[in-house]
């Protein structure tokens, strides 16, 4: 369908919904790289006005990525609930924004309507929203999941402890895990990005995580973020796998570039489901995403990167994941150029993921070739903590020595929790107190001699 907007003497024409979405998207380098962005600021504003007048029902009539060519489109469309959509079916995208922000539209309302919202509708409305709208609407939604603890409850902020090492050295990884636990991090997951996909070293890391979690009876889960086919093999061989991880994107072709398909994800899901290692819940899938991955694989179908990111959430929600994490600034300046673009993208991803029913975390991060620094990370961290983000990353000193980028640190987690009165997952909070690691004010306690975790840490020296 063609969309038009006349501004003064000039009429802007948008040839399709896909074109309209791309031109309405707030400026970012990835869409410029793809050659699909608005050519002027006025054209962008006109596109946003035309998008505001488009009906949500238009999105049911026009595919952004063709149904016949793309299994992600098929999965999203086939899973769409007309019944849930009914409540919002008469709205334009502009009215949808108004409705989302009404006080009467509560978290329960949004949860009810969520199965009727296509990822493309979520992306569309987000393009009209200011940062404060993205925060306000997302803060209404709590998507709670559980494995060995409960993540995403109101007033809670969890942290993935990320103890990466460039050569997967077990002592380096163990030392980083201890550092994070002392700082109250690790309730979302203790998750290692392995330097090598080597099956032997992956299983060694799985045993290391399982050993620490078991020895100290930590109410949390471990994960080695290796390719899903390696995890399936580890499960078959009896290695102690808690979570099944995979990076995913919003088109079939980008997933092919990751070496996965919906069928492979389903296979991983079934392998994970056979384990039943969760104690308080049964969510065990862990997905990572990030704007720009489809373009980087030449798999973007000329759709804008934020819409494709929302489609990745459409794929994720078919698997009831424990954790979904947008790695927002990792991909580099050719997709998100600077701190301003990274902050905006982080809020969009968090909002869209929450609206689509996902337990969203954000890896608030940047690389050294992007125009960003720790001040930008502080800004996004604070905004996401206000928006009710389920979890963030905890990397020692914010410096990931394996992946070569900067994320948030254990100190940052203490800051965000302290500044906004947010607490760890309840089971993990109890553990922190029981272990004498945190005091009644929920800040790190002075460790008594003979503290069990401190003795455990000292044992690494042996």
């Amino acid at each position, binding site marked *: 369908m063609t969309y038009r907007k006349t501004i003064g003497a000039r009429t802007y024409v948008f040839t399709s919904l896909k074109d309209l979405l791309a031109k309405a998207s707030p400026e970012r380098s990835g869409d410029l*790289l793809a050659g699909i962005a608005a050519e002027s600021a006025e054209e962008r504003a006109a596109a946003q006005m035309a998008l505001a007048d488009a009906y949500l029902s238009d999105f049911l009539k026009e595919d952004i990525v063709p149904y016949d060519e793309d299994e992600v489109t098929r999965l999203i469309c086939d899973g769409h609930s007309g019944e849930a959509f009914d409540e919002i079916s008469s709205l334009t995208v502009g009215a949808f924004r108004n409705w989302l922000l009404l006080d009467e539209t509560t978290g329960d309302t949004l949860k009810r309507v969520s199965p009727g919202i296509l990822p493309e509708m979520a992306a569309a409305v987000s393009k009209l929203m200011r940062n404060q709208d993205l925060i306000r609407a997302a803060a209404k939604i709590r998507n709670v999941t559980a494995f060995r603890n409960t993540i995403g409850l109101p007033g809670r902020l969890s942290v993935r402890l990320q*103890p*990466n*090492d*460039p*050569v997967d050295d077990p*002592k*380096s990884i*163990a*030392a*980083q895990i*201890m*550092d994070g636990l*002392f700082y109250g991090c690790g309730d979302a997951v203790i998750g290692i990005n392995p*330097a*090598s*996909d*080597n*099956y*032997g070293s992956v299983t060694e890391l799985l045993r290391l995580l399982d050993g620490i979690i078991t020895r100290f009876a930590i109410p949390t889960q471990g994960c080695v973020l290796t*390719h899903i*086919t*390696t995890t399936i093999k580890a499960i078959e061989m009896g290695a102690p796998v808690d979570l099944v991880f995979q990076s995913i994107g919003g088109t079939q072709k980008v997933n*092919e*570039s990751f*070496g996965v398909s919906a069928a492979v994800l389903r296979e991983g899901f079934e392998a994970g489901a056979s384990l039943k290692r969760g104690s308080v819940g049964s969510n065990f899938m862990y997905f990572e995403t990030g704007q720009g991955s489809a373009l*980087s*694989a*030449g*798999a973007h179908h000329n759709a804008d990167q934020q819409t494709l990111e929302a489609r990745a959430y459409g794929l994720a929600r078919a698997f009831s994941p424990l954790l979904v994490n947008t790695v927002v600034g990792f991909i*580099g*300046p*050719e997709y998100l*150029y600077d701190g301003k673009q990274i902050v905006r993208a982080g809020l969009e991803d968090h909002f869209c993921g929450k609206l689509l029913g996902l337990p969203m975390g954000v890896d608030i991060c940047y690389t*050294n*070739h992007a125009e960003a620094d*720790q001040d930008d990370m502080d800004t996004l961290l604070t905004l996401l903590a206000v928006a009710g983000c389920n979890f963030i990353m905890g*990397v*020692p*000193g*914010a*410096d990931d*020595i*394996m*992946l*070569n*980028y*900067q994320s948030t*640190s254990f*100190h940052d987690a*203490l*800051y965000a929790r*302290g500044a906004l009165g947010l607490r760890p997952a309840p089971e993990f909070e109890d553990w922190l107190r029981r272990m004498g690691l945190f005091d009644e004010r929920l*800040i*790190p306690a002075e*460790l008594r001699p003979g503290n069990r975790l*401190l003795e455990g840490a*000292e044992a*690494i*020296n042996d």
Partner: protein
Amino acid sequence: MDQKNNKTQTIIPNPWDSLKRFTGARIALGRCGASLPTDKLLEFRLAHARAKDAVYAAPDCERLKADIERISGNSAFLLESRAQDRAEYLKRPDLGRRLSEESAALLASRAPGQVYDIAPVISEGLSAIAIERNLRPFLELLYPELRRAGLSAAPACLVRQGRVAVADEVGSLLGARIAVILIGERPGLSSPDSMGIYLTFNPHPGITDERRNCISNVRPEGMPCGAAVSKLMYLIRGSLRLGLSGVALKDEQEPDDALLEEGRGGMELPS
């Protein structure tokens, strides 16, 4: 800045300080409330400043070319991508993935016209320091291994401002069965000198990442050259045997502790 001379204690230390010797990660930093102590904050800023500077450093191509020719015993090509300058390189990875028209024409006209097992490609990528520091010791270990395995290597190509996929075009123009690119990785805060290695079987333009195998973080404090060469030779042999590369080529090599310890033990690399 010498906080030790302050009479008032402002830093809460971490009693697990002894663990620092096991990791290059920034652990046991101490805290002031929830926050980083001032010296740690400023050390971080310095590291970030140096990493930013590394992104914009340029390699000494003539010297690198001479090194490559000496070690390989063969002539090398000095090529460039389509990215005109650093700013364009950073914003337009598509241009970094293709050879400039002049470079493509040069390679096509001077390609020796035989089938090679391996086409070695080198680019500074995002860190010239990575190539300046790691290329020579790496090649000095790699070439003898290639000869021992009876594998033929095409003339090496040094591509200014290249991205990983530029090796696909080079490999296909040279008629190689496998393209291997050694490239400066995005500089890390603690590792501005990290080199990455990517291997692609049957290289041609348009290949995506699931068809590649990667060895990351090659540098003395990360994966030392000896271990990286051993891993690369393992992947090359597997790739030639199976006729593929990428996720279907699993890395199931047993880690060789002796090779991994080589770097951390402070052993000098051959020069």
